[in-house]
């Protein structure tokens, strides 16, 4: 069973890397850019067959290590 996890900075946390990417894209002539936020992406494969259990495990992984909940949010999707 495979899941994707996306970790992004919370809305009110400054994302200087995203800002620089945005500025650079604007310099390349990409207009009408409203906002860019940079994040992290994980693909996690489990041997479990029970989807509920597997989702719980991935959720636990996010809370314990993959995301720092003070500054980051995460989203889990089955893929």
């Amino acid at each position, binding site marked *: 069973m495979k899941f994707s996890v996306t970790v992004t900075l919370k809305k009110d946390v400054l994302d200087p890397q995203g800002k620089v990417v945005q500025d650079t894209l604007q310099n390349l002539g990409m207009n009408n850019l409203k906002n860019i936020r940079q994040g992290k992406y994980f693909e996690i494969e489990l041997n479990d067959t029970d989807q509920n259990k597997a989702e719980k495990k991935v959720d636990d992984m996010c809370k314990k290590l993959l995301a720092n909940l*003070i500054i980051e949010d995460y989203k889990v999707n089955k893929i």
Partner: protein
Amino acid sequence: MNSSVIVFPGSNCDRDIAVALEKMQFKNQMVWHKETKLPKSDLIVVPGGFSYGDYLRSGAIAGKSLIINEVIRAANDGCLVLGICNGFQILTETGLLKGVLLRNQNLKFINKDINIKVINNDTKFSNKYKKDQVLKINIAHNEGNYFTNPDHLKELNNENLIAFRYCDENGVVNKDSNPNGSLENIAGIFNSKKNILGMMPHPERMVDNLISNTDAVNLFSSLLN
């Protein structure tokens, strides 16, 4: 006084702090991160460096290492813990200190001597300093931009848990004297029991006039006091 310095793959200030501690007459031991027992310690130092190459987030992997459980237990029993630079980042990842160190606001790795001001001199770590004393000290980091939630920031101020603030050489704390964008120029904080200090500047680099100055000697002599 017995001290232990925790060593992770990628630590690079571990020997500097060991030299500083021994110079100040601590009986020091180095402890590899895979150990599951700490030697008898009055002080545990989590040193600077790039533990695990800063993979995932600075300090995130080291914050879940085997020895860290022992550090957490010792800290909760009142043992003194000093986290320097990456060590500060690791302590926030363990939850021993609240908040987080974000990427420097200007996105640059900053390595330079700056000034900090002693905010609370009534602790085990700072009793040899005068209040508001200005120190010249080195910083060398990419993620030193301290951030925390408004409630904790209030607690830091109300409970006198801010150890140091970045300032200029006259002690003025403002935006111009803030090198990395830290909230309220915070350079170091204590936990609520004040037995844990996390700081981004490197005191181990300021104990010998031959290479810099001796502005951090009093931090170590405070601990011995």
